[in-house]
């Protein structure tokens, strides 16, 4: 309830709302830098994403029609909501829903325009959702099995790091993160710099500030995902941070050692190995 | 100068062309040359790096039957000839109707020689740009 939130919580919410995009942007900047170095290039400065965002907001706001932009706003707001929920340690399922709806809004925005590439990208985005959503839910199930609670805050009450009890789920989750960040081999619906058969896919018709909104939402999302990775070692922040770095490098290496594969492949893969890993992990937890 | 040239006519064109493929010839391309009164249309076939050609002389204004029904690959070049020389090619599998390489705004039949005018001034000299 609103009235039950005390001022520390308000501060936490405010701080996380402000900090998340910065962290996300920083990660994106590091991503670009490290990717460049992996390819033997010098690469852009680490704060490049900030320049990009500022630039996007100084561009002319062009669009195909008005409705499209509403969805960009909703996309961002739901992403922010996820951050708020996480900061409040709220129900994990609700967090997942909010996150899913954020994505759905992006999809709807992409589909609301009469632009074939955008629509194809949107459909692929839904496929991506189909691919990773079960894993996210299974992670929640695993958390529930251990804590008997759906609350995000309950994770902190676990005495052992989550990674110890859900190592396989962690691996599966990394695949999901790769999808969410549109990294090879999963960058089917849109992709940041690669040249794709559907051009920019789902974001193709957003320009200027509206693209900026979507980018910011993406930063939020990145921050959220990395926060969740950190939660896998909730008992020690430093180790959690190390875990995060490792995961970050792993995803970048994945990005740089794989080509983009097809949607069909993605679905098949995600519904076989990671799903199998997750279910195995769940069964193990269940039998414990 | 060009070896293995056989003269053919519009009437036996299709038969001749059809007879080439079973012999293991690969269709290479066609060349159209404007010879003033008529077009020389050369059909090039290749077997073991050896070209063998048909030469068809087509009167201006006459239409050329398409061989794209026999050899799909000829489609592209026939459309091109139709564009660039204004030769009407009949029976194309996919007819771009003279809009293959050219658009409405482009000159018509650009590769035809206009009698009398042998050379169009190619490009403007540098002064022209300077004046502008």
């Amino acid at each position, binding site marked *: 309830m609103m009235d039950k939130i005390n001022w520390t919580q308000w501060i936490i919410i405010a701080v996380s709302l402000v900090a998340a995009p910065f962290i996300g942007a920083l990660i994106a900047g590091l991503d670009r830098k490290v990717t460049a170095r*992996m*390819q*033997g*290039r010098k690469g852009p400065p680490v704060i490049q994403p900030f320049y990009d965002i500022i630039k996007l907001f100084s561009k002319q706001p062009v669009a195909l029609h008005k409705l499209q932009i509403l969805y960009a706003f909703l996309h961002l707001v739901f992403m922010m909501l996820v951050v708020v929920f996480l900061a409040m340690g709220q129900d994990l399922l609700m967090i997942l829903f909010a996150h899913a709806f954020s994505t759905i809004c992006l999809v709807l925005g992409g589909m609301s325009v009469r632009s*074939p590439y955008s629509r*194809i990208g949107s459909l692929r985005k839904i496929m991506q959702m189909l691919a990773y959503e079960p894993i996210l839910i299974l992670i929640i199930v695993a958390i529930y099995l251990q804590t008997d609670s759906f609350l995000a805050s309950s994770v902190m009450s676990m005495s052992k790091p989550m990674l110890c009890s859900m190592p396989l789920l962690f691996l599966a989750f990394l695949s999901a993160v790769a999808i969410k960040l549109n990294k*090879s*081999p999963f*960058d*089917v619906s849109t*992709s940041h*710099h*690669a*040249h*794709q*058969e*559907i*051009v920019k896919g789902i974001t193709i018709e957003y320009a200027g500030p509206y693209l900026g909104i979507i980018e910011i939402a993406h930063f939020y999302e990145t921050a959220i995902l990395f926060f969740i990775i950190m939660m896998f070692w909730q008992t020690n922040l430093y180790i959690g941070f190390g875990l995060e770095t490792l995961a970050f490098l792993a995803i970048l290496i994945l990005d*740089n*050692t*794989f*080509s*983009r*594969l*097809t*949607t*069909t*492949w993605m679905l098949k893969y995600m519904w076989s190995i990671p799903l199998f890993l997750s279910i195995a992990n769940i069964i193990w937890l269940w039998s414990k | *100068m*060009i070896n293995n040239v056989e003269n053919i006519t519009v009437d036996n064109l299709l038969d001749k062309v059809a007879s080439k*493929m079973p012999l293991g010839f*690969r*269709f*290479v*391309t066609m*060349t*159209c*040359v*404007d010879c003033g009164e008529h077009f020389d249309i*050369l059909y*090039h076939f290749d077997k073991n*790096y050896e*070209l063998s050609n048909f030469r068809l002389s087509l009167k201006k204004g006459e239409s050329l039957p398409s061989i794209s029904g026999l*050899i*799909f*690959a000829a*489609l*592209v*070049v026939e459309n091109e000839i139709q564009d*660039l020389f204004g030769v009407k090619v009949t029976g194309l599998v996919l007819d771009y109707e003279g*809009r*293959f*390489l*050219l*658009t409405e705004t482009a000159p018509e039949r*650009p*590769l035809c020689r206009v009698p009398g005018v042998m*050379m*169009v001034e*190619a490009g403007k000299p540098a002064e022209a740009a300077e004046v502008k």
Partner: protein
Amino acid sequence: MAKNTIIPFGPQHPVLPEPIQLRLVLDEERVVSAIPVVGYVHRGLEKLAEQKDFLQDTYLIERICGICSFIHSLTYSMGIESMMGLTPPPRAQYLRVIWSELHRMHSHLLATGLLADSFGFENLFMQLWRTREHIMDAMEATTGARVLLGTCCIGGVRKDVSEELLKSVLQTLVTVEKELDEHMPVLLNDYSVKQRLCGVGILDKQVAYERGAVGPTARASGIAMDLRTQGYAAYGELDVEPMVETDGDCYARTKVRVRELYQSLNIIRQAIGKIPSGSINVPFKTKPDGEVISRAEQPRGEVLYYLKGNGTDMLERLRVRTPTFANIPPVLAMLAGCELADVGVIVISIDPCISCTER
């Protein structure tokens, strides 16, 4: 039931480096039909060549395409030479071979790099182009230009290459080979690359033959055809074998290119080893007259020049049939029934060069 998707694929499309439109009809994401729409790069160069004199044409012809430019001017020169009865001196012939093969290498690296880009392997693209840069340097060092070499002329070549430079080219080749050894396994053995290439865009031998495929496209379908074996320029004295694969899919085409890269390395080494000294061109006074067909093996396949001179400075007709021109009908056969995601890959796998095609 649902209508089919109709989209233009190109002309301005990041996967296609060049403007060509494929009008795709898709059922969900499966291609039902693909119709090429061209003319975005049509310049009308054949006409212009008739209006410049045949010496200037050498430079014009080079600019049919920046990727395979040298071999264009080479084929053109060979045509004019045979019209005028000239035989370039052997050193020129060898230099021509060396530059041709450098061109082939840069073109193949470019093509495979673009292919990697088209299936989203950015890193591989970067690495291949990085390797390519060595070859560009070698070309710039030997000719003075990176792309449009401008060194082939009628009767020989314009520029001699010193022994040191040739040595440095060999040196470059060592680097290139080392890097190729590193990258080629990625192209050939990587799981994800194979996923995208194997079994995609299959062109079987019969169709390849009927539709007149040339170059790596044809060779990948099992048609052993390489004009270099006919021994134009100095190829007759060098060891050239057509590189043939039989699967006819994108993977086979890539493999042909990869093998040709090594082959080119080998040829250049042979040529540098055997290169005689002497003059680099022959003087001439005559004007081209008569009709001639000249053919050579471009990176993408057989190029055919039809030249008709009339004893004046101007040619009466110059016609170029480039390899991509011949490869367009086969690529349409490959596209039918493929996935949208593979359209770019398939198109790039024949290494299309539209500016060659449309001139």
